[in-house]
């Protein structure tokens, strides 16, 4: 797209006319938004896949202890950083949702086109975790409170606690028990055993272990509260990291 005028602007002036200015600025704003979205997508995706990816890739990794602990904590980093930038610079309370949306766009393209399209893993095995309701929650708390401190305490608590319930409607069916050759296992385990993954053999599958069965055998609340607690700390840290990456400092060439 190009925006032209017949002759140059008057000497010393940037713009020929108000129309030229408005058309150009609106177009450029949209392009910059796409730039930000694409970069957050790429950066968040490589972060998430290499810190929580195994639990996000596979249905038989989506357990009741490690997955609801690790995934919200890791996802919180970019939600807080993007929220920090969009809130402090533009007063837009959409950062966490935008970050989650960007990540999920990248993940779904990959799971369909590559996990299923190239190496033929069924989507039932490889669908990504839901995150967007958690992003909504974090953004709503920031919008209503106008305070990153309140968002860190209240928003992050909800962020950690919401993760398992929002994924449960899809996950529940895979946690039904099955007895195969005398062994009790879940449907998710069964799918996993049938699709051997060469780089992640069974002996390094990190799923729930331990003996305490708080709240009447269920371990999820303990994992969720622990995840929420760490998410609070992560929020504080990554809000500041987002602020730091928003700096507009210049340095002298001789300094490097």
């Amino acid at each position, binding site marked *: *797209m*190009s*925006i032209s*005028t*017949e*002759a140059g*602007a008057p000497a010393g*002036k940037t*713009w*020929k*006319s*108000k129309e030229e*200015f*408005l*058309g*150009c*600025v609106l*177009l450029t704003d949209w*392009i*910059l938004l*796409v*730039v*930000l979205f*694409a*970069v*957050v997508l*790429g*950066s968040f*995706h*490589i*972060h998430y*896949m*290499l*810190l929580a*990816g195994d639990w996000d*890739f596979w249905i038989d990794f989506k357990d009741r202890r490690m997955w609801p602990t690790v995934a919200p904590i890791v996802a919180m980093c970019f939600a807080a950083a993007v929220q920090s*930038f969009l809130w402090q*610079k533009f007063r837009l309370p959409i950062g966490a949702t935008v970050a989650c949306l960007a990540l999920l766009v*990248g*993940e779904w*393209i*990959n799971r369909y086109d*590559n*996990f299923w399209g*190239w190496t033929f*893993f069924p989507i039932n095995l*490889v669908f990504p975790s839901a995150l967007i309701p958690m992003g909504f929650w974090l953004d709503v708390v920031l919008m209503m409170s106008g305070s990153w401190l309140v968002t860190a305490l209240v928003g992050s608590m909800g962020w950690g606690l919401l993760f398992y319930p929002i994924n449960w409607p899809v996950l529940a069916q895979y946690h039904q028990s099955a007895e195969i050759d005398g062994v009790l296992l879940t449907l998710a385990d069964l799918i996993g055993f049938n699709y051997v*993954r*060469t*780089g*992640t053999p069974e002996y*390094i599958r990190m799923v729930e272990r331990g003996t305490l069965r708080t709240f009447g055998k269920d371990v999820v609340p303990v994992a969720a509260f622990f995840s929420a607690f760490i998410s609070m700390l992560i929020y504080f840290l990554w809000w500041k990291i*987002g602020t730091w*990456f*928003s*700096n*507009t400092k*210049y340095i002298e*060439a001789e300094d*490097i």
Partner: protein
Amino acid sequence: MSLTTEKASGAVRAAESDTIVNYWPAYWTMICLAVFYIGIRIYEQYFGWKAGLDSFAPEFQTYWLNLMWTELPLEFIAFCGIGGYLWKTRDRNIDKVAPREEMRRLLALVGWLAIYAFTVYWGASYFTEQDGTWHQTVIRDTDFTPSHILEFYLSYPIYIIAGWGAFMYARTRIPQFAKKISLPFLLFFAGPFMIFPNIGLNEWGHTFWFMEELFTAPLHWGFVFFGWFALAVFGTACQVLDRVIELSKEYEADVLSL
């Protein structure tokens, strides 16, 4: 697609026109890159299975290693060529840039940033997670797997070249970036660039230490650390927008009324 305020056309009038922004070169670059990436994805679909399973097989040499030995020199030439061209044609009178010309260059930089962001998506998101699924399907016998040849040695160098072009364009043509070095822009380029040397750690670790491909293994965390620096796009965008605002003070009220 073009937005113009001129009514006449023709070579003479076109030559006289004073285009403030033209994003078509950026659009065409991204279209060409998308077509290229879709093409190599189709190549990968076919020759990954047909010739990419055994690195000792002659067909692996033909279809995959030859691809790598072709792409790496071309990427090095492109990196040097773009940097060299932009440096050679730099504005040697950077203090005398007129406001309209500076705005034109700032908007051209936005086009460069769009290309960089587009290539970051393909490298950091598409091809990186794709590599995960290949690792879970095939037991590799080489560092140079089909997915690595396209991920590490094609999509990563391409985003490095795009980022280098954006950085050098700003350094050689836009006063605010030429007189001093923008810290966020430097991080925005240098952080993702460092992912490429980090491949050395990754392959060393997988060769001598940790054969499995647990994606969350600490061996992979170097990629994560350097990927964080892409968030410096925040500061870079702010620096561009700050200057656009400074150069457009006369229309500030019009923007606020939108």
